């Protein structure tokens, strides 16, 4: 009787939600494979720890960079494809500052300002790092944020604002145009080579069962700054008058106008906050991975879009959560598949989550 009931219930479940069943089977197979690898010593716990840590860091970068994208989406109803190049622009401006401060007197100023274009000067040679040149890094972070703010305000004022009342496709294509223009302008100025930006930062090894997980100073810097900014945005949105007005506007722009919320000023604040976070995310991304190229932001943008869509586009909490999911997936996928497919795996996870929850994890919560 008991078995028959369990069986029939199982059959009902399989018929009603075949998709969930398939997912469950796949998850079980992956987990089994992982356990088998651990049991036979083919996979080490420390490897997993390293990948989780790496994924967490990647997720923080994606999440931080995704907040700005999500904000402009929810308040201006527009998916800004130039966002990735705001990230790169923030990174170049910040790193030019860092190079200049760290390398002043030791290298040609022009070469420093161009972030060592054409191999004229190397970040590693100047010894750039959070612990070795803290002032240069902090100044770089500030400049990256400030420059991205100025850039997003300028682009909004002169390019997006005139077409803001056109339909969504016009804005979208305009933003793609801005993206290309920015990207190749940066390639023209800074060159197309990928340069190393930091000296090897000191790290600590954490013992984990069968090996060591290394955590370096730049990981910690990223963790502190990204989580600090995320908490800051949360408090801003929940506690301040401006934050509440931003959420109100994301909810219902017409009503916001009727209640006397100065909508243009809120739009400007959105670009300022979103732009600042984006620029800083760009800088931290480079500090963490140690290399800088003109394509970095654009390549990251696809993962950021995956993250914000996965989280429920328009929600900053969705962007953060989605960023962590995408980051962890992209890193941990190498446990099962060749690393060349890691990015693809992130998108597969996005599609699977959207199939289960079509409007995203934090759907309908807009900025809240």
């Amino acid at each position, binding site marked *: 009787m008991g078995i028959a009931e369990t069986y029939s219930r199982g059959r009902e479940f399989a018929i009603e939600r075949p998709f969930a069943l398939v997912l469950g089977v796949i998850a079980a197979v992956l987990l089994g494979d992982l356990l088998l690898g651990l049991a036979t010593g083919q996979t080490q716990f420390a490897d997993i720890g390293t990948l989780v840590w790496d994924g967490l860091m990647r997720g923080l970068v994606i999440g931080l960079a995704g907040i700005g994208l999500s904000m402009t989406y929810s308040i201006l109803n527009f998916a800004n494809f130039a966002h990735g190049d705001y990230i790169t622009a923030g990174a170049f401006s910040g790193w030019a500052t860092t190079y200049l401060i760290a390398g002043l007197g030791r290298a040609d100023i022009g070469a420093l300002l161009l972030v060592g274009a054409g191999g004229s000067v190397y970040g590693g040679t100047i010894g750039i790092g959070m612990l070795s040149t803290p002032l240069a890094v902090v100044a770089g972070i500030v400049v990256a944020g400030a420059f991205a703010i100025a850039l997003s305000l300028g682009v909004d004022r002169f390019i997006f604002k005139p077409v803001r009342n056109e339909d969504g496709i016009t804005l979208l294509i305009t933003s793609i145009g801005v993206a290309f223009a920015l990207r190749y302008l940066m390639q023209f100025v800074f060159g197309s080579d990928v340069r190393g930006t930091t000296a090897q930062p000191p790290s600590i090894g954490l013992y984990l069962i069968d090996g060591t997980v290394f955590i370096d100073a730049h990981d910690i810097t990223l963790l502190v700054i990204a989580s600090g900014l995320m908490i800051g945005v949360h408090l801003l949105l929940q506690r301040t008058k401006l934050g*509440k007005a931003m959420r109100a506007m994301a909810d219902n722009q017409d009503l916001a106008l009727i*209640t006397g919320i100065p909508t243009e000023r809120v739009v400007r604040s959105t670009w300022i906050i979103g732009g600042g976070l984006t620029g800083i995310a760009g800088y931290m991304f480079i500090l963490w991975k140690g290399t800088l190229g003109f394509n970095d932001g654009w390549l990251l943008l696809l993962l950021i879009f995956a993250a914000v869509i996965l989280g429920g586009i328009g929600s900053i909490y969705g962007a953060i959560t989605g960023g962590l999911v995408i980051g962890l997936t992209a890193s941990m996928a190498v446990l099962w598949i060749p690393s060349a497919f890691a990015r693809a795996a992130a998108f597969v996870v996005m599609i699977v989550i959207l199939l289960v929850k079509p409007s995203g994890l934090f759907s309908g919560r*807009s900025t809240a």
Partner: protein
Amino acid sequence: MSVDANTDATSGAGVEDRNDVLLRVRNLDAGYGDLQILTDVDMDVFDGEYVTIVGPNGAGKSTTMKSVFGLTAHMGGSVQFQDEDITGRRPEEIIHVGIGYVPQNDNVFPTLTVEENLEMGAYILDEVPQDAIRAVYDRFPILEERKHQKAGTMSGGQQQMLAMGRALMLDPDLLLLDEPSAGLAPDLVDEMFDKIDEINEAGTAILMVEQNAKEALRRCDRGYVLANGQNRYMDRGSALLEDEQVRQDFLGG
């Protein structure tokens, strides 16, 4: 009782000789984009008065109200509020003069809490007026019970009360209500009208558009009947209810 000239529209209940006029609309032409909806509309609301606009669909009832609040394209005529010319001003300026507006649909911020919605109602003030929030809670106790709940998760009637509460946060002299009973269950409709009576009795003048014309005319001081974007009748609510022509043409017999 039918009116052709605008002067007739306003002289019906002897309103010209009153000197406590709050809102005075004269010869208003307005619409959306290039489309004109209102032609020569006249309307008055006096201090503390309760005025209803009724009429068939597409008569321009809501458009009249939106025009007062600066939400339409102004094409001619004037809108005066307390001796101030507010013709063609934008909504963000008009809330400063003492007019509150409750739109028919989408009149709360769904992901904000009840209390945050009320705070948004007083956005133009530097500080959140705690006494105004207190007054709204006293008038609508259900809102206090649910002050931390997201507005979008409340029932239609509760959202309507929240929308009114939000519009009352600046203690307006005139409250514009666009179909407050739309979409409410029958027992809630009465409660809603009772609340509007209370707000009016507390001294706030009401200009209301209502689909539920008979009940609205029973409760109001004065009513306007609009059709095709023009004034048709104006009189005390009870007089309009008794008027054979009005009953036949506009109140379904």
